[in-house]
């Protein structure tokens, strides 16, 4: 946690975006390690693969398209206002955690709603040794379907915005090429 905080501070301070994207990858990797400590192996898996791997690559791809230096903008008043908003939100979030049950508390609400049923019955009803999988794909099939659609929508959105622009540029280049050859021909 301390390391995550340190990396977060470094991300906020550093102006070189290349270093920032690397640091955010490191942040995700530490986060994945934290999930392993909390016994959430599936989540850690995803965090390591998506957070540390893919999103870093995508950020680097974006940096290659734009620039690797952060533009300094905004006055002092702007940054003070932003700091106030962040501080208040953070304070509210921390205040909210006071009501949460302690980690590993056996009378916590999360252990009493549907979880005992999943743990006791999923072996008979679904027959999967990994309860996470049976909850994800069977009991919560609709949620997972929704997530798949979210990913699908993300990809089609990126295609619709960036894929189109690329094609138009190619068309223009092709047009220029054609007019160029025409000039040469004439």
């Amino acid at each position: 946690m301390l390391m995550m905080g340190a990396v977060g501070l470094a991300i906020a301070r550093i102006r070189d975006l290349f270093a920032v994207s690397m640091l955010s990858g490191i942040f995700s990797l530490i986060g994945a390690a934290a999930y392993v400590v909390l016994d959430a192996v599936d989540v850690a898996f995803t965090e390591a693969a998506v957070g540390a791997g893919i999103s870093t690559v995508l950020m680097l791809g974006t940096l290659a398209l734009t620039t690797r230096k952060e533009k300094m903008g905004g006055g002092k008043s702007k940054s003070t206002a932003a700091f106030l908003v962040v501080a208040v939100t953070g304070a509210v979030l921390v205040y909210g955690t006071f009501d949460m049950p302690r980690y590993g508390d056996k009378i916590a609400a999360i252990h009493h709603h549907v979880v005992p049923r999943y743990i006791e019955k999923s072996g008979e009803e679904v027959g999967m040794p990994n309860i996470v999988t049976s909850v994800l794909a069977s009991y919560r099939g609709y949620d997972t379907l929704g997530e798949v659609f979210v990913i699908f929508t993300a990809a089609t959105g990126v295609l619709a915005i960036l894929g189109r622009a690329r094609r138009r540029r190619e068309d223009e280049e092709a047009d220029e090429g054609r007019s160029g050859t025409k000039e040469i021909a004439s």
Partner: protein
Amino acid sequence: MMHRKVVLRVVSKFLIPPILLFALYVQFHGDFGPGGGFQAGVIFGSGFILYAILFGVDMAKRVLPPWSTRLLLVVGVLTYGLTGVAGLLLGGNYLDYNVLAHDPLHGQHYGILIVELGVGITVAAAMITIFNVFAGQTGGD
């Protein structure tokens, strides 16, 4: 892109097949260990992305042309959705896998396997598509 990085190219050539194999392992072993469609799809996609980073997007597109990833994107979502519809047609609820086989447990097993495959295909195709589009902006160098 990186034509002179011999070490990186050789090491990645050794690494990419195990990465893809590991993705398949995560995909089909998700019933027993940690993992599943999402993780497998991301790992599979990152194997291709590693290839594209080292050997250039054009080489990667020769292995897996853009139309094929777009097709796979749709195939993945449809696999998931149609598994639900198959449950409907066989007399169950939407996404009810019990009716997919004679034994409800087997039905659940098949259902989860197919659905996770759909998830994996979608995620892998989405990752490769997004990366290709991002990297293709610079002109594929």
